[in-house]
């Protein structure tokens, strides 16, 4: 473990969802640290709280109890616009269903978060080209999501997540909608991203993807049981 401060640290995190039939504790007293450059896989059966934990780490959701620190700042004390800014510039998110904007081309999908972060036109152009090459989709840059395969869409989504050079990449079941071979390609891509110094936390059922991680956290019933 490196001596540097963790990128994100959760202490005694709890997340309770109020339901008409009774409150559901999706996450109960979970503590976790993600160090810079670390590659962590979170596994576990459906409904064990993996995605809930990922959402908390990504500042997408707020914990009911406990403390979350992102690069030393307490997330719970931040305003929504500060949390948005963290998500935009310090975290990259990859979703199971890609969630690319259907009316934009691959190029535009990757460029969009850079524009929002305030990058200049030339910076955006250079970075987008670089990322398309990185994910091997230069020749598909003018294609819309409806013209791409599942694996290609996910690669564009990964490129989009990396657009603003975040130190942390979070992926929620990135190969959930892909076949085995394509899943392997995505896993290879994550290896490259990790090798370039980005910390990765991936929630997955895929053993191939999980096997590539340095550390595996197994969850069950809202708690971390091993790792």
């Amino acid at each position, binding site marked *: 473990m490196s001596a540097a401060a963790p990128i994100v640290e959760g202490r005694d995190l709890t997340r309770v969802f109020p339901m008409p039939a009774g409150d559901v504790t999706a996450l109960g007293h979970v503590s976790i640290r993600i160090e810079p450059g670390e590659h962590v896989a979170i596994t576990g059966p459906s409904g064990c709280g993996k*995605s*809930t934990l990922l*959402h908390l780490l*990504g500042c*997408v*959701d707020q914990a009911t109890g406990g403390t979350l620190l992102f690069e030393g700042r307490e997330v719970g004390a931040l305003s*929504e*616009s500060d949390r*948005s*800014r*963290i*998500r*935009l*510039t310090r*975290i990259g*998110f990859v*979703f*199971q*269903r890609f*969630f690319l*904007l*259907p*009316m*934009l081309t691959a190029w*535009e999908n990757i*460029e*969009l*978060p850079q*524009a*929002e*972060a305030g990058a200049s036109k030339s910076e955006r152009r250079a970075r987008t080209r670089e990322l398309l090459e990185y994910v091997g989709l230069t020749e598909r840059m003018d294609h819309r999501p409806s013209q791409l395969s599942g694996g290609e869409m996910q690669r564009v989504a990964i490129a*989009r*997540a990396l657009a603003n050079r975040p130190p942390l990449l979070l992926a*929620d*079941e990135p190969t*959930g909608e892909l076949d085995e071979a394509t899943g392997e390609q995505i896993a290879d891509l994550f290896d490259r991203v990790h090798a370039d110094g980005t910390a990765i936390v991936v929630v997955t059922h895929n053993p191939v993807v999980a096997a590539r991680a340095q550390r595996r956290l197994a969850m069950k019933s809202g708690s971390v049981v091993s790792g």
Partner: protein
Amino acid sequence: MSAWSLAWRTVVHNPARACLAIGGVAVIGALLFNMLLLSRGLLVSFRDLLDTAGYDVRVLANEGSPIHRAPLAGAPSLAGEIERLPSVRRVALIRSDDALALPPGRDADAASVTLIGSTERQLGGAWDIVKGSTLPAEVHPGEPVPLVVSTKLAARQRLEPGSPLRIRVNLAGGASVLPSVDCRVVGIGSFTFESAYDYTVATTMAGFAAAHGAPDGKDEADLVLVASAPDAGPEAAAKAIAALRPDVRVYSNAQVVDQFNARAFSYFRQISVVLSTITLAFAFLLVATLLTMSVNQRLGEVAALRALGFPRRRIAANLLCESALLVGVGGVAALPLGGVLAIVLDRILRAMPGVPERLHFFVFEMDTVVLHAALLTATGILAALYPIWLAARLPIAATLRKEIVS
């Protein structure tokens, strides 16, 4: 990518939906534009009509309204007194009566007309000569009474300049055995105040008296028209006349317009307010529904953008721009469409009896375009509020989860 560019791309991504929505806004916007035109059109047109005649003050007997009046006794001396006022440039006396126009040998083509007698040959812009000449300055005894007939009457009775015509006056309030008088058409004109169902014939005051079996009270007039001196203006002229002769009623054109605005036109103003309000509510409802459905279809996208770090205000700006595009493009298209619709609706309303054919219910004014734009803009903004609230408030994690599960 700016909010406008993203909004544009979102809108054109579904061209059928966008065209239909914009088309709907254009049609409703056209209706709104027309209702706004209607609220002032009649007023503006009536004022223009009054001003066309070139006279800006009217003098009437004390009894009656600006349109239905009792005759003024001693009219020539009254006219002389008024003309001597420094604030007055010109005076004309008008008389009118119902009559029958009988083309010789063609009694079946007889038509009821309004016979106007005037001391002025042309009466300013009250009629425009289309064919022939205007009334002569003098009529010699024994000559047929000179007439200017309206184009509609000329078409119906196949009259040309020089055609003979007999006029028989109908005296109101009793049986009349006045004989018809021989007249001659000297000109065919387009009469400013003629309605769709009326025919108008103008003659000299002497001709009018002859038609009534002169002399018949030549010193009477139904109306005295006054043109104010340019350096005095109508209000000053009206005030001076009222001071000179407190026994008569004096109205400037502006006052006539105000009276009509308060009475005859108020229905159209009210109906235009009611229909404008309903149209705006309709447009609001439809744009809001469209945008809300659009947001509901894209909740996953919106949640993903929020998860990627796009702040609420950016999402709100995107939606506002989408609304602005739909309403803006539709609103611009509404103007030419509204113009065509105005022509159609104007034609319908001008068929109302008693309405001068040159009076228009819909008159284009730049202010109306500005008001139309402002109202549509406000509607577009209001319509976007609920979908913006939906998108800005959605729980990101829960929405992402729901999208994946569904």
